[in-house]
Structures are given as C-alpha cells and as structure tokens.
C-alpha cells in the first residue's frame, strides 16, 4: 500500500488554481520532499493531505484512507508540524508534549513513555521545564516536530521546518529528521535546495501548482540535463515557465 497517493488532486481558490491535477505516490518509510518557490502549491498540498483543506477535485489517500471521506481515520495516523511554530507559548516543553499526547490517547502510562521518548530523541532535557515562549526559534521547531510525533503517526508532514532558522539550528534539525528517516513516512516541503538534496529519498519540483519533475536527485538531474539540484531546479523552472 502507498503511504500517499493522489490522483488529479486540485485546489482552486476562486480564480486561482493553487494545486493543479497533482499525481504523486509516496512509498511507506520514504522521505519525500516537495520543492518549490513561494506560492508553488506545496503548503496547499500538505493542507489537503492532512485534512486541513478540502480538495476542489481529484482524490488523495493516506495509507488507503481517503482524505475527504475518511477524515477521522486519516487524523489518527498523521502528525503535522505547520509552517509557523504552533506551540502553546505559556506551557513548558514537557506540558506541550503531554498536552498533545493526551489529545491523542487517554492511556497515562503510554503517554508518559511517549513524552520521555521525545525528550530523549530531540535531546530536550535541558529545556524541558522552560516555557515555549522563552525558547529560540530552533528549539521551538524541535518542540513543534516532537508534538507532531508524540502520537506515533505513520505519516509526518513537515511544512518548511527550517524556515527562518540560522545555519546551525537548521543543521541540528536536519540531524533529527535524519534520525526519523525510514521509521515513518515523511512529507517535507521546502524551498531550500540543499535541504531537499540532503534529506530526501525522492523530490517533486512544484511550479505553479503542478509537478514539473519527480524522482531521485540523479533522475531529476538527468531529466533537467543539469548537475546539482539548484541547476536542475532552475532548468526545470525555466522550461516550465517557457
């Protein structure tokens, strides 16, 4: 079974088509990057796949569950870390994790274990009792991703996880994402070429709501006839515009 499958998935906002007949298939355990400039349709795609926005037409499923007709089933198996850091500012790191764990499960023992697991995985013991509002941008993103993972989702959506972070914080977050690779399916949106290049198994380049190229890095380079993701991206983008 595919982790994610979309068939002619489309989202229109009045006159504007944000996502145009998207066809993608993501395997279980894969780290799949949606790469594109601002307004390419990456976030809209993630919103539709995580039941935050209804498709205008077409179909999408997460592990076989339709995102339009089986929302409850989809919400049980996904985790999302939105573009803006979505944490409860006046709660401590531990309280944020406990809160999200309780939203997903009533099992106190299991929740306590999950919280400890996340603290260890993200190396958060030094900030665990600090309120979220006092944390740096990098730490907040880590907390946000840990909150998305606390329910042990089968599919994790990371929307621009390193946007606005300095190079050290970005590298630190990459380390965490690498640790998750292969364990769960990850859909990552980014407009940083090196991020997609560094982390993903496969990449889809989105331009004006459409997939302009899809495949592994060597496949995309071959298709574009250019070396390196940035050059390939520019070649594909120019071809897409022309």
């Amino acid at each position: 079974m595919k982790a994610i499958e979309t068939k002619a998935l489309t989202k229109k906002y009045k006159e504007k088509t944000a996502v145009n007949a998207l066809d993608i298939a993501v395997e279980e355990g894969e780290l799949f990057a949606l790469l594109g400039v601002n307004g390419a349709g990456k976030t809209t795609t993630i919103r539709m796949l995580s039941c935050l926005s209804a498709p205008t037409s077409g179909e999408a499923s997460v592990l076989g569950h339709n995102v339009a007709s089986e929302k409850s089933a989809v919400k049980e198996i996904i985790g999302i870390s939105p573009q803006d850091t979505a944490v409860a500012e006046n709660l401590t790191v531990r309280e944020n994790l406990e809160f999200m764990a309780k939203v997903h499960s009533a099992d106190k023992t299991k929740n306590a274990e999950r919280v400890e697991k996340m603290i260890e995985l993200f190396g958060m013991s030094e900030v665990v009792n600090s309120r979220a509002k006092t944390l740096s941008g990098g730490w907040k993103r880590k907390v946000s991703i840990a909150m998305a993972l606390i329910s042990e989702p089968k599919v994790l959506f990371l929307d621009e996880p390193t946007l606005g972070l300095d190079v050290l914080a970005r590298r630190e977050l990459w380390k965490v994402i690498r640790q998750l690779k292969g364990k769960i399916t990850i859909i990552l949106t980014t407009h940083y070429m090196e991020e997609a290049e560094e982390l993903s198994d496969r990449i889809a380049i989105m331009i004006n709501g459409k997939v302009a190229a899809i495949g592994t890095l060597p496949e995309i380079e071959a298709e574009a006839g250019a070396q390196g993701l940035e050059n390939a991206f520019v070649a594909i983008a120019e071809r897409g515009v022309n």
Partner: protein
Amino acid sequence: MNRILAFSSRNIKELLRDPLSYIFCLGFPIIMLIIMTVVDQSIPRESGMTVFHINNLCGGIAMFGQTFVMLFTALTVSKDRAGSFLVRMYATPMTSGDFTLGYIIPMLIISGLQLAITFCASLIISLITGIELSIGGMLLAFIVLIPSAVMFIGFGMLFGTLFGEKSAPGLCSIIISLGSFLGSVFFDAENTGGVMLTICKCLPFFYCTKSARSAISLNLGVEEFVIPLLIVCGSAIVITSLAMAVFSTKMKADLS
C-alpha cells in the same frame, strides 16, 4: 472527554500564567469594591442612596467582573485562531464540540475563582462598614451567577471567533460598558425608571444584577428572583449555543 480535559487544562494554564488575568479577572473586582465603598462612605446618609452599599454592590460587581472573563475568552479564542496553533489542533481528532467545551470549562473555573474573591472581599467590607451580608445569600448568588458567567463566556467566544485579535477586545469593551451602565451596577435603574429602565430591561445584564442582588438579600420572590434568573438562563443558552454554532461553522469554513 479526554480531549476536552486536555484542551481545558492547556487553556487554564495559559490563562493563569498571564499576569493580565490576575489584574483584570481577579484584582479588578476587588479594586472596584474598594473604590465604590469609599464613594459610598462619602455620600451623605441623608441622600438615601443605597446602590453603593456593599449588599447591593457585591452582586453588581460580581456581574461586572464576569465581563472581563468575556474579554479574556475573546482574547484567547482570537489569538488561537490568528496563529497556527489551531491549525495543528484541527489536524488532530478534536471536534468543534471539544474545542468549545475546552474553552468554556477553564473560563468557568476562572469565573468561579473571581466570584469567590469578590464575595470574600465583600464580606470583609461588610464587617468594616457594619452593613450586614448574608453568607447563605452569597452562596446562593454564587450559584445564580453561573448562568450569567456562561452567557459572558458565550459572548467572548462569539467575538473571538468572528473577529480578530485587535477588533474582538474593542467589541468586548462595548459589552463591558453596556454591562456596567445598563446592568444597573452603578445606579439604581428601578428607582430611575422611565426610558432608562425600559432600555435596561431590554438587555440581559440588568437581570444578571437583579437576580444576584435578590439572591444575596434572600429575596426569592417570582418577580424579584425567579423571572430574572430564567431570563439570564435563557440568554446564556441562546448566546452560548450561537457561539458554539458559529465556532463550528468557522471551523468548517477554515477546513474547506
């Protein structure tokens, strides 16, 4: 139920860690009680003005304090809606009912704390001024003011859902002003009579104050207590149901 309790717990922690909650929700009623008692002491006895006597004042101030709980409800909801926190929560199995109850329960707890503080301060003032206050009456008023608290929380949710972080507090301040002036907190509307009394009777705030004052004085007649309380209960049901429906509609619109 688990999700409602988790969200309520988050909301109450957010509120109790905001210093403004203490100033407005818990401190403000005490300050108002003290100021109005000083005003009462300054009014010559011969004037026969009793609206600022603590036995009349405490019910009115208790209701007035609830208008600030409304303000905080509106701020909490509008702030959550403005950021991406609710976006994250929308992707969880939480329903609109879980969200609305998760906002209402902590605000009711804050409102209960506020009432307890207001009545304790009133009791102390009554001992100082020598104006008798019935403890039984205050306990009854505590219960009578719960529907009123629900109504104000409903108003807060409604404004917080419909308007942004900047406009929701502005709209709440209109209700705060209406609540204090037309709720007969700072003047005796019934003795004033005329158009003023008619206007006061058109809004639920007057009945909140009237039922609370009647409970405090253990004046439990139909006209003085039962009818005003029924009007407040009806208003609470209408406003809160409307707020819940609007939140649910907005949530569906956000997810469309």
